[in-house]
């Protein structure tokens, strides 16, 4: 797969900026989503109150996460769900592969799940001999193209209909067309066949309710309903932070999530799944497995600033609002989670060494914080992470320069000498080239304030 690395964000971004088609697509997508979100938020009289309420609920969950997780596991378990705990991605993949192998499954249908992207589940299942089919239209397209998703809720926004038509032509033998409806119906027909044949359906989870053991998944296409209704085994994979205390809490989150993501009042479908069916003759799968994944999440609880990244409900609003994401798109981040929230989650999940550039992929303008439905203070998180990175990754020359600057600023005589020197030197040597490449450097004035004052 054509995965970029988050270690090379700078180069990835440069390449993305040179791609005029990509920038056009990003502009359309982010501005459309942004406008729709704004209108949808304005349609409710109490948007700000809802945001505060949602955040308070998330904070409540996170500060007692062990208790709520146990309550959820016990309630889902007593209604027939099998609960599996996975410390990391490899453990989650091993559990799921073992389940599918033990049941002699051959075809696995999947609905969109960022969590399984995070664990690279598809690679593991394929290595175990399964045929894995992504069924969300956008995910299906990028699976055929062997590319990672570029947006949390619209994974294939970087591709044109022309590119998709060529892909369907090569992979599915479909005649070339620029008709989106025909492309969509071809995907529908091809995937129906896979749904009918699949033994296992794998989904993500948007919300897990502690008091009832219910998992809730929201969508527009219907592929999640098919994935969770047709195959005889349903495996749901969720990060441990997805728990909500009460069923009634859904009220707030179902108002915030669709409006923030696509600007809809409600997505087309919500499925509330509580344990397994009661009678063997009832509709739906025979088995329900819920995989609870930690993979670095529990570590984030240790600090109140980093903890808030676990409040994220994956709506994608911060991506659309971010001036950096708007220009470079999702692939440049080299991570499953792109944009502002990706820049804070990725270093915490994958290790700060591997993604030290990401917290700097922001102008700290605060647009992400303004749109976040759960009021995550992303700029503060970015600064927090930068403070962790600086002592490790900061260049010796940079640290030395700031030390000297501090010395100079504390001593009037040194300040006087250096401003005279600066005035001369700035004409002779190019200063801070990397910085001035994209910005203008103001020249030092010929007379300082002190000098002007004494002249008076």
């Amino acid at each position, binding site marked *: 797969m054509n995965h970029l690395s988050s270690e090379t964000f700078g180069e990835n971004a440069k390449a993305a900026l040179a791609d005029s088609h990509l920038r056009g697509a990003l502009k359309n997508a982010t501005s459309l989503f942004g406008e729709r979100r704004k209108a949808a938020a304005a349609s409710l009289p109490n948007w700000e109150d809802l945001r505060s309420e949602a955040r308070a609920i998330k904070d409540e969950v996170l500060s007692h996460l062990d208790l709520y997780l146990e309550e959820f596991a016990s309630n889902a378990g007593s*209604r027939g769900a099998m609960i599996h705990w996975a410390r990391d991605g490899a453990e989650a993949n091993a559990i799921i592969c073992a389940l599918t192998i033990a049941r002699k499954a051959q075809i696995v249908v999947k609905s969109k799940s960022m969590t399984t992207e995070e664990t690279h589940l598809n690679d593991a299942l394929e290595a175990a001999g399964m045929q894995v089919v992504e069924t969300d239209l956008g995910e299906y397209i990028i699976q055929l193209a062997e590319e990672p998703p570029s947006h949390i809720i*619209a994974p*294939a926004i970087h591709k044109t209909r022309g590119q998709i038509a060529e892909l369907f032509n090569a992979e599915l033998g479909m005649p070339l067309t620029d008709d989106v409806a025909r492309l969509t119906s071809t995907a529908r027909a091809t995937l129906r066949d896979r749904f009918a044949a699949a033994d296992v359906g794998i989904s993500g989870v948007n919300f897990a309710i502690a008091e009832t053991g219910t998992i809730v998944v929201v969508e527009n296409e219907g592929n999640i309903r098919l994935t969770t209704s047709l195959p005889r085994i349903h495996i749901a994979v969720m990060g441990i932070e997805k728990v909500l205390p009460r069923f009634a809490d859904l*009220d707030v989150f179902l*108002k915030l999530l669709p409006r923030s993501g696509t600007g809809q009042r409600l997505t087309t479908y919500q499925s509330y799944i*509580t344990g397994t069916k009661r009678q063997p003759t009832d509709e739906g799968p025979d088995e329900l497995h819920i995989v609870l994944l930690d993979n670095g999440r529990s570590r984030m609880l240790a*600090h*109140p600033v980093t903890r808030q990244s676990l409040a994220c409900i994956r709506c994608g609003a911060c991506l659309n609002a971010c001036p950096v994401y708007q220009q470079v798109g999702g692939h440049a981040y080299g991570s499953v989670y792109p944009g502002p929230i990706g820049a804070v989650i990725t270093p915490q999940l994958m290790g700060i060494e591997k993604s030290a550039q990401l917290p700097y992929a922001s102008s700290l303008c605060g647009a992400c914080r303004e749109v976040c439905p759960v009021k995550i203070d992303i700029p503060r998180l970015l600064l927090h992470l930068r403070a962790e990175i600086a002592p490790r990754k900061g260049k010796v020359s940079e640290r030395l320069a700031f030390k000297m600057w501090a010395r100079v600023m504390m001593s009037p005589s040194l300040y006087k000498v250096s401003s005279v020197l600066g005035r001369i030197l700035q004409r002779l040597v190019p200063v801070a080239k990397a910085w001035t490449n994209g910005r203008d450097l103001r020249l030092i004035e010929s007379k300082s304030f002190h000098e002007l004052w004494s002249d008076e």
Partner: protein
Amino acid sequence: MNNTAREAILGSIRSHLAASVPYDQQEISRGFSRMNADQNPSSSVEICGQFKASLEAVDGHCVIVQDDGGIAEALTRIIHGGRIAISDNPEILRLLNLTDLEIEELGIAPNAHDIFRFDVGVSTVQAAIAETGTLVLDSTRERHRLVSLVPPVHIAIVRASQIYRTLSEVLSLIRKDKEISPAVTFITGPSRTADIELTLAIGVHGPQELYVIIDEVN
């Protein structure tokens, strides 16, 4: 093995929470979302009209009728015949018998293998939401999980008395049951996607057409 992972994860959560600065508990103020819940109950005509407008805003079709004759007439108009899958609610069969449709094949709650060949699915619902145009299907009350999902056309028959005003009301209604049904589904309009160039395409995986027939009187 599973137990080890469970203990490790819960242990990690506890130790990291304990290491953290105590969280300054915010007072959770609840009920903002339910601000509009206690308005006066509106008339049947008004609430049916609101449901219809909400559903049409998301590309669903809505027919409001006054009696069984009206339902039968609407069914005849929407279904032209062909293979029809219905839920196990006997009400559907009774209403279909009032029509003079030429039905090629009738399946009652077909299973996951058979459902794919049907042209139309017909069900009732357990509740509906006027503010969003949403249908609420509870799988323990009626076998309509596949009938409402797999055929390209879904027709739902709704009684005016089943329509609630808000999402909040319906969520608390579901919670009121001692045991929540294993599968509750909310449906708002036909299946849709905008995954290709953000161009709206209706009917990607679920039904391409959704018809709701409301009996305004009963």
